C-alpha cells in the first residue's frame, strides 16, 4: 500500500517546479530583450508573454508553497518530471505565438523536444523563422541540458546505474538539496566555458565557410549549443549540410563528444585532476562502440554507393555516426537520404549507435555506455562461471570513478532498462506503422529509437501532418528517455498515492 504524500512533500515538489519555471522565464526574458534590441517586435512580444507566464506562475507557486522541507530522492524525481512538463507548457507559448506551428500540440512537441535535448522537430518553414525565435529553441536545449546533467548526477545515475537494483532504496532518503546547489554552480561554470570556447572556434570556422556579418554570431551560437548539449536543432532545414564545410564539421565533433561525456570527467578536467580514463568502463565501451559502429556505417555506405570515394565516405559516415552515438542528431546529409540512398546496413548501424548513446551524467540519451558495459561484463562473468569448476568463485569488477565489484543487481537493473527501451521502441514502431501507412518498418524503428534515445536523428518521416496520437507517442518516448524511465514511473506512483494512497 502506497502512502499518501503529506502537504510538506507536495509543497516541496511544487516549490521546485515553481523555481524551474521561474528560471526558464527569466532566461526567456533575456532573449526577448535581445529580440527587441534587434528590432523584432513580434518575436520579442511572443517571448515576453511566455517569459511573463513563467516568472508569474513560478513566483506565485513559490510564494504559496514555502516550506523548509528539503528534497528527498522521491520528491526529487517527482519534482524533476513535473518541472520538465511545466517548463514544456510554458516554453510552448512563444513557439505557438511565432506562427510556425500549425497547432498548439505541435508547439508543445517542439518545446519538449528542445528541453529533452532530442531535436525532433515539427516546425514549418524554419528557413523563414525569425532568428530570435530560432535561437529560443536553443535556449530550451541549453536549459534542458543543464537540468539533465544535474538531475542525472544527483538523482538518476545513483538509482539506475550503480545501485543494486532499480529500487533506489539506498538513496531515496538522502537529502540531496545541498549537492544540487553545488552541482548547478559547477555545471554552469563548465557549460559556460565549453560554450564560450566552442563559440569562438565555431565563429572562426563559419567565417572560413563564407558566413558573414551577424550571421556568424547567430549561427555560431546555434551550432555550438546544439552540439554541446547534444540537442540537434539547427537554424536551417539543411542542418550542418547548409555550410558545405569540413572545418565546421571538424569543430562540431569534439563539441558533440563533450556533450556525451560524463560530467564527472568534465569536473575532473576542470579541477586539473589526473583521471585514469582508459580504465573507465564507460570510456572503453563508448570508444569501442563508436569505432565498431562507424566501421559498420561506412561499410554500409560503401555498399550502397551513396558517397563514392573514400574521403566522402569517411566524412559523411563518421560525422553521422558520431552525431547518432552522442544522440545529437545534427546531420550533414539530407535526412531523407538516410532512407532513400544509404541502403539498410548504414541506418541499422545508426540505430545501434542511438540505442547505446553516451555516458551517464551527460546530456546524451540512450541506454548509456556504462549499462552496456555492465551487461557485457555480466555476460562474460556468466560464461566464465559455466566454464570454470563448480567450486570456483568468479569475481568481476569494473571501474566507474573507482574500482567496484560487479553485483547481480548492477546487471539486472541495466538489463531491465535495456528491455524497457527495446520493448518501448518496438511498441512505438508498431504504433507508427499502424498510424502512418507511408512509413516502412526500417523507418518506423529508426524513428522510435531516435525518440526514445533523445537522439533526434530522422529519416524525414516525421511531419506536422502526422496524427496527434503519433506525435504524442514520440513526445512520451522523449520524456521517458530523458528521465530514464524510472523518474516518470515514480511520478505516476506519486500521483496515484496522492489520490488513493493511505494516510
Amino acid at each position: 500500500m502506497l502512502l499518501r504524500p503529506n502537504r510538506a512533500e507536495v509543497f516541496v515538489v511544487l516549490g521546485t517546479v515553481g523555481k524551474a519555471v521561474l528560471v526558464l522565464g527569466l532566461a526567456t526574458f533575456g532573449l526577448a530583450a535581445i529580440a527587441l534590441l534587434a528590432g523584432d517586435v513580434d518575436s520579442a512580444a511572443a517571448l515576453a508573454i511566455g517569459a511573463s507566464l513563467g516568472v508569474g506562475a513560478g513566483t506565485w507557486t513559490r510564494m504559496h508553497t514555502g516550506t523548509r522541507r528539503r528534497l528527498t530522492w522521491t520528491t526529487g524525481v517527482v519534482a524533476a518530471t513535473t518541472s520538465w512538463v511545466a517548463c514544456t507548457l510554458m516554453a510552448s507559448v512563444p513557439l505557438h505565438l511565432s506562427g510556425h506551428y500549425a497547432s498548439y500540440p505541435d508547439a508543445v512537441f517542439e518545446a519538449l523536444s528542445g528541453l529533452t535535448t532530442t531535436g525532433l522537430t515539427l516546425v514549418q518553414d524554419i528557413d523563414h523563422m525569425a532568428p530570435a525565435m530560432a535561437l529560443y529553441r536553443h535556449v530550451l536545449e541549453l536549459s534542458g541540458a543543464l537540468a539533465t546533467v544535474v538531475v542525472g548526477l544527483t538523482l538518476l545515475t545513483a538509482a539506475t546505474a550503480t545501485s543494486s537494483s532499480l529500487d533506489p532504496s539506498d538513496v531515496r532518503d538522502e537529502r540531496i538539496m545541498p549537492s544540487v546547489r553545488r552541482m548547478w554552480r559547477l555545471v554552469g561554470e563548465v557549460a559556460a566555458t565549453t560554450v564560450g570556447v566552442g563559440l569562438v572556434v565555431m565563429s572562426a570556422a563559419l567565417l572560413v565557410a563564407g558566413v558573414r556579418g551577424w550571421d556568424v554570431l547567430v549561427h555560431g551560437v546555434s551550432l555550438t549549443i546544439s552540439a554541446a548539449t547534444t540537442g540537434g536543432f539547427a537554424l536551417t532545414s539543411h542542418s550542418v549540410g547548409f555550410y558545405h564545410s569540413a572545418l565546421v564539421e571538424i569543430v562540431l565533433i569534439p563539441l558533440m563528444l563533450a556533450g556525451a561525456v560524463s560530467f564527472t570527467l568534465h569536473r575532473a578536467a576542470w579541477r586539473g585532476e589526473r583521471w585514469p580514463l582508459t580504465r573507465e568502463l564507460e570510456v572503453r565501451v563508448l570508444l569501442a562502440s563508436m569505432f565498431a559502429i562507424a566501421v559498420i556505417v561506412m561499410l554500409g555506405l560503401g555498399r550502397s554507393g551513396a558517397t563514392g570515394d573514400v574521403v566522402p565516405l569517411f566524412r559523411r559516415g563518421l560525422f553521422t555516426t558520431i552525431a547518432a552515438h552522442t544522440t545529437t542528431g545534427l546531420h550533414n546529409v539530407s535526412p531523407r537520404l538516410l532512407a532513400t540512398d544509404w541502403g539498410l546496413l548504414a541506418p541499422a548501424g545508426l540505430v545501434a549507435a542511438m540505442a547505446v548513446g553516451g555516458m551517464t551524467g551527460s546530456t546524451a540519451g540512450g541506454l548509456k555506455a556504462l549499462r552496456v558495459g555492465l551487461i557485457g561484463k555480466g555476460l562474460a562473468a556468466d560464461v566464465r562461471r559455466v566454464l570454470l569448476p563448480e567450486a570456483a568463485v568468479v569475481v568481476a569488477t569494473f571501474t566507474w570513478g573507482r574500482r567496484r565489484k560487479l553485483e547481480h543487481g548492477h546487471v539486472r537493473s541495466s538489463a531491465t532498462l535495456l528491455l524497457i527501451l527495446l520493448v518501448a521502441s518496438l511498441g512505438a514502431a508498431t504504433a507508427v506503422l499502424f498510424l502512418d501507412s507511408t512509413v516502412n518498418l526500417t523507418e518506423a524503428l529508426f524513428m522510435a529509437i531516435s525518440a526514445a534515445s533523445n537522439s533526434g536523428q530522422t529519416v524525414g518521416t516525421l511531419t506536422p501532418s502526422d496524427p496527434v496520437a503519433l506525435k504524442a507517442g514520440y513526445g512520451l518516448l522523449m520524456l521517458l528517455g530523458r528521465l530514464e524511465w524510472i523518474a516518470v514511473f515514480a511520478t505516476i506512483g506519486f500521483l496515484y498515492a496522492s489520490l488513493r494512497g493511505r494516510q
Partner: protein
Amino acid sequence: MTRRPVSARAVGEIAVAVVIVIAVIVTIRILRDSAPQARLPHVGTAAPDSDDPDIVTCERTLPDAEETQQAIDQVEPVGLISSTEVLECPDAFDQQVVVYVGEVIGDVLNRDGGAWLLVNDDDYALEVGPLRGHGDYRGGNSGLAVWLPAPLPDLEPGRGDVRGTVIQVRGRIHRSDAADGGGLTLRALSADTVSILREAQDLDRPVHRAQAVAAVLFALLAAAITLQARRSESRR
C-alpha cells in the same frame, strides 16, 4: 477515517487559478488568430516542357565508373524537377542535367570560383511566401544544395520576413559530389545557365500591436506578482 474539509479560501484560490489559466488560453488563441497577414504573390515558374524526357524509375544501381561515364555522355536533359523527387530517388537522377527553380535561402557562401547556396522549391518559396505572413501551413522546407560558378548574379537570400531571390538553374545533379565531400548537389552548368525569375521581396507585415500590448500587460502582471512575493518574504 475522516477527511479534513477543504477551506473556502483554498476553493477560492483554485477557482481564481482556473479562471486565470482559461483567460491566458483565450488570450493566446485570440493573439494567434489576429496576427496581421501578408501573402506574397506566386512565382510564375516555368511549366515543365512536355518534350523533355521524364525519369520514371527509381532503380538503384551500384557505382561503376565506366558505365557512369557512358551514362553521362548519353544523357538527355530532363525538364523541371523538384527537390522532393531528387531526394526520393537520388540514384536515378545522378549525373542528369535538369532545370531547377527555387528561392535562395540563408546565406550565399562564397568560395573560390563560385558560391554554395541553399535553394528551396517548397510552397513557401514559390507559392505563398514566408509563413510568418500568413497561416497557410504547407509543411516543412525542401530544397537542394546548389553550386553557382562565378560571376554570380545579385542575390538576396530569404530569411524572416524576406522571400529571397528566386532563380532558375540549369545544371547537373551529383548524387555524391566529391567537391562537396560526397554531398548531393546540383551544379549549374555555367554562370549563363542561371537566371533570376523574381527579385527578393519584403513581406511588409505590420507589427502585431495586440500582441505587443498583451506582452506589456503580462510583464506588468509578472512584475506585480514578484513584488508581492518579495514583500511577503520580507514580512516573514
